[in-house]
């Protein structure tokens, strides 16, 4: 299954899936209801595996990631980071990991909750991205991939969402 997280307007994203509608795809988009992570660690110590914020529809992201073969992110690149909505979704998916730590190559990371790996593909868009921002974004995705135990990471930069659509079809 492919999971797509994007920050586009519904109308803007309509028709993107095209022929890929044959495969199983779950799309996470901005319904306007998402609440921010509260930093409570409840997804680790109160309701392990799910977020304690239940009413906005973004509480089972960790479990969704565990069923995904590919996690595709489509985001405006802002200062070398994801846009606020995409960041919010990622922040709310903390339950994908365990709270426990493991040290690998001299660095501490969280242990995985699931015996699972997905491919991480990130499509950033922006018309005036600086080299510094692109460099930062590459480092960010690499670090995310390491912490999420992704099987591979790919980062692409596009000047507009339309160019991403063309590249994907």
């Amino acid at each position, binding site marked *: 299954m492919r999971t797509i997280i994007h920050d586009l307007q519904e109308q803007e994203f309509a028709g993107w899936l095209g022929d890929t509608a044959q495969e199983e795809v779950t799309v996470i988009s901005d319904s306007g209801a998402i609440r*921010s992570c*509260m930093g409570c660690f409840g997804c680790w110590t109160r309701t392990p595996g799910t977020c304690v914020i239940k009413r906005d529809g973004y509480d089972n992201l960790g479990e969704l990631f*565990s069923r995904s073969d590919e996690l595709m992110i489509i985001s405006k690149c802002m200062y070398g980071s994801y846009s*606020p909505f995409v960041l*919010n979704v990622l*922040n709310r998916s903390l339950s994908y990991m365990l709270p426990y730590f493991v040290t690998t190559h001299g*660095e501490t990371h969280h242990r995985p909750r699931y015996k699972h790996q997905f491919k991480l593909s990130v499509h950033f868009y922006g018309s005036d991205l600086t080299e*510094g921002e692109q460099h930062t974004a590459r480092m960010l995705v690499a670090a995310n991939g390491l912490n999420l135990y992704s099987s591979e990471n790919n980062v692409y930069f596009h000047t507009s969402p339309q160019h991403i659509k063309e590249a994907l079809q």
Partner: protein
Amino acid sequence: MNIALINGSPKPNGSNSGILLSMLEPLIADGNELHPYTPNKRPLTPEEYSELCRMDVLVLAFPLYYDGIPSHLFQLLVTLEGYLKTEREREIYVYALINNGFYEGQQNHIAVEILKNWCARAGVHFGQAIGQGAGEMLGSLDKVPLGRGPLKNLGRAMYSLAESIQSRSAGESLLFSPNFPRFAWKFYSTRSFWHRTARENGLKPKDLRRRM
């Protein structure tokens, strides 16, 4: 100088970012007006965004989330960029106090780069950042004086940051681990934090590994 102290933790109370700000405050209080902002409790108002444009210094304290800046604080920065572009009339310096859950403070380096990129877009000066590893330890070290024991590195960095703020100058960003062995920190975090919290919530340690 007018200095804004922005607590960028998503926790409404008892945040490590709040602890770090409370350590910094006495070091920069002399001769300056300190203005606390708590977007972790409620979003800033338009008037507060305008106030930030009239500050001499912005200090952002936040935890590392997904190798970057927490989303609610990131949204604040996006909004503030817009205000700064239209309302800023003076030179503003930005400093950061970051803490991360992993042991190595070095893992804060991408958040520092994101903040530098934001400063360039917003037309403000990046001053300096300090990044404390194993930030969750801070809450249990309230009896330890800054600069002593596990807080030795933090003390050194905090004094450097305070000096940079006082002189509104740029300094080398300092990312560091606590003066505490990593194996002991891992043991402590598992037994005294995660397992204890699980029991307080009526769970057994093995429940924490639940798969959905």
